[in-house]
């Protein structure tokens, strides 16, 4: 059989079998004087005792300090069954080990202490399409991705030199030329003295994990790009409200680090209000939005819209607060300019209206004064003795002349209001209501009036003159606010609603809780007024505007308190003109 056992094995066999019975196993150790280069031992003939035994031969050298002094050779004779059992056990153990090595989902290899590969498992061969020969003498390096090669070789060399665990991630070329990522781990096997006698290693495929990581990185990058690119300051705070992230745009705006950003950047006039809202937010977990001025790095305050929303965990607790701050300075300035223009226009209109009313009053009063004087004169002429008929007639003629003159003035005024024809464009009545209320916001807030707005969002666009409709709503809302001026016994509440009517029209209602009006019809007459100031043309103009648009305007007392003014406008453009 020619199998060679090492001395310890023979010793072990001898130990197991006790003094080896000569019939079954005989062990002879002889001294040999020389061993040829080919391993043949001169003058040594194994002695075979029985036919069912097998001969085992081992030669081992005996050294002194300098050289081999002599050789010994041993033969062991085993019974065939013993050997067969030992071999079967060994084979079984080997087979099971090999099975483990070939089955584990990894590429397995081993290498000599100098780093030279001496075994690769079938999976490694299958993956690379290479045999062990293609791995030796560092040829394995050609299978590593060029970008990873330098680092991999260095790590391996370092491990071989120091005996430290080899751990690296690199791409390995597959048979088809594609690279996949692997996590590589190599551990040294050491002898009793601690010397590395062998390296055992594993390549574990981590391509999927790497791809997932890459995807997450890309997605993160993508999100970061969005967060950095959107024209807004984005921030995140802890549930307790401590700022923990601000995007680059924000840091640049404030011109500082995260730690330097705080409430002190908010305009002093807006700071307390904002802080109060923010504390309520933190307390209740409710989102909020607001506008405020924030100081830029150069000291300039700009208007921002801020919206804050909480992100909640599965238990519903606030996990983070997310805030977006959008620069609305320009639109705010425009809004302010618009409001200022509106104020000036309104003031100018009031002055103009005052002058107009004075002029109208004068125009009408003069002929009336003449009529009255003539009337009295006429009476006096008639009642004198004798009656002066001639003079009485003259004065009567003058009376009718001056009365006609007054009537003409009235006609002229009518013409003045009539010629303002509306310029119709498609408009959203709800938008106009919104704009008007925002224009009047200061007046409304200044008089501590609570406002309720209930608009029908389904209303279609109509054809109307936006300026005139706005004037109409301005007049009606102002009227409502002024009607509530002296009210102290109940809440000053203003309500504006819009809705669609069955009659193919839309209606807008302005409810007030004022003192109410005695005769709902007379208020629309020109020069009717209950106010100290004003000429009483407001509601008359309102009625002219609605009628010019083919609509109607009326007022009715509320069941509880105050008055509701309602105007309707046709939805179909053909209805009016």
């Amino acid at each position: 059989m020619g199998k060679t056992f090492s001395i310890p094995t023979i010793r072990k066999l001898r130990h197991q079998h006790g003094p080896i019975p000569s019939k079954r196993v005989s062990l002879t150790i002889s001294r040999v004087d020389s061993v040829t280069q080919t391993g043949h031992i001169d003058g040594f003939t194994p002695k075979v005792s029985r036919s069912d035994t097998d001969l085992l031969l081992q030669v081992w050298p005996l050294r002194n300090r300098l050289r081999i002094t002599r050789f010994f050779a041993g033969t062991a004779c085993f019974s065939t069954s013993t050997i067969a059992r030992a071999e079967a056990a060994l084979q079984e153990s080997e087979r099971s080990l090999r099975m483990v090595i070939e089955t584990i989902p990894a590429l397995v290899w081993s290498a000599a202490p100098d780093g030279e590969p001496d075994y690769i498992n079938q999976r490694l061969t299958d993956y690379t399409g290479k045999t062990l020969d293609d791995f030796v003498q560092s040829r394995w390096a050609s299978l590593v991705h060029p970008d990873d090669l330098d680092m991999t070789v260095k790590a391996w060399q370092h491990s071989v030199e120091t005996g430290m665990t080899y751990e690296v991630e690199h791409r390995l070329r597959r048979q088809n030329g594609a690279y996949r990522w692997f996590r590589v781990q190599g551990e040294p096997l050491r002898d009793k003295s601690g010397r590395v006698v062998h390296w055992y290693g594993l390549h574990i495929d981590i391509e999927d994990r790497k791809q997932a990581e890459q995807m997450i990185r890309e997605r993160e990058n993508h999100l970061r790009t969005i967060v950095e690119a959107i024209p807004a300051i984005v921030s995140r705070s802890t549930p307790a409200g401590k700022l923990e992230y601000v995007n680059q745009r924000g840091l640049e705006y404030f011109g500082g680090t995260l730690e330097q950003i705080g409430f002190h950047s908010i305009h002093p006039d807006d700071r307390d209000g904002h802080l109060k809202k923010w504390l309520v937010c933190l307390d209740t977990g409710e989102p909020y939005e607001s506008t405020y001025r924030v100081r830029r790095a150069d000291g300039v305050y700009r208007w921002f819209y801020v919206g804050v929303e909480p992100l909640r965990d599965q238990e519903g607790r606030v996990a983070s607060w997310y805030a977006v701050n959008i620069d609305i300075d320009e639109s705010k300035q425009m809004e302010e300019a618009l409001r200022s223009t509106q104020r000036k226009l309104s003031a100018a209109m009031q002055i103009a209206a005052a002058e107009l009313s004075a002029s109208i009053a004068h125009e009408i009063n003069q002929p009336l004064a003449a009529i009255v004087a003539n009337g009295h004169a006429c009476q006096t002429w008639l009642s004198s003795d004798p009656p002066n008929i001639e003079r009485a007639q003259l004065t009567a003629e003058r009376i009718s002349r001056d009365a006609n003159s007054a009537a003409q003035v009235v006609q002229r005024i009518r013409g003045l209001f009539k010629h303002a024809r509306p310029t119709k464009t498609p408009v959203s009545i709800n938008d106009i209501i919104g704009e008007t209320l925002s224009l009047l916001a200061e007046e409304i807030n200044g008089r501590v009036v609570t406002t309720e707005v209930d608009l029908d969002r389904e209303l279609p666009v109509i054809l109307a003159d936006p300026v005139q409709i706005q004037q109409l709503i301005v007049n009606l809302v102002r009227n409502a606010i002024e009607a509530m001026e002296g009210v102290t016994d109940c809440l000053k509440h203003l309500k504006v609603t819009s809705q669609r009517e069955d009659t193919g029209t839309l209606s807008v209602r302005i409810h007030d809780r004022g003192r109410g009006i005695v005769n709902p019809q007379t208020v629309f007459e020109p020069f009717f007024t209950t106010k100290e100031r004003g000429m009483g043309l407001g509601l008359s103009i309102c009625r002219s505007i609605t009628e010019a648009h083919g609509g109607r305007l009326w007022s009715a007392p509320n069941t509880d308190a105050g008055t509701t003014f309602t105007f309707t406008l046709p939805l179909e453009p053909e209805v009016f003109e």
Partner: protein
Amino acid sequence: MTQPGGVVYLVDDDSRVREGLSELLASFQIEHLVFGSAEQYLSCEKSAVPACLVLDLQLPGINGLDLQRRLAGETGPPIIFISGHGDVPSTVRAMKGGAIEFLTKPIDPVALTTAICAAFDQDRNQRHGFRI
């Protein structure tokens, strides 16, 4: 109606008002002269009899209050102001300037004649005082 002895100078820029008031004064047998402007009034020769000035507040050129101021130093006739609408500051100024009365148009005939009588009395006393 008793005819007060004296002459009324009526200044109003509106011809219809001028005509009406002139007719009214005529029906009351009150002697009067009419003027369309302050300038016309100033350029006219005044008679020596007791007189009063019925003066419109709003006049083109020299207005009523200007004329009152201008006449303040002279022994001019007492002034009765008439106006389309009497605003408070103008009324105060007119009365402080020594006006007899401030009447709003349309003018109540009784109030007017009462004021005219009072003005004639004042002017008569004034002239009498001067003579002494």
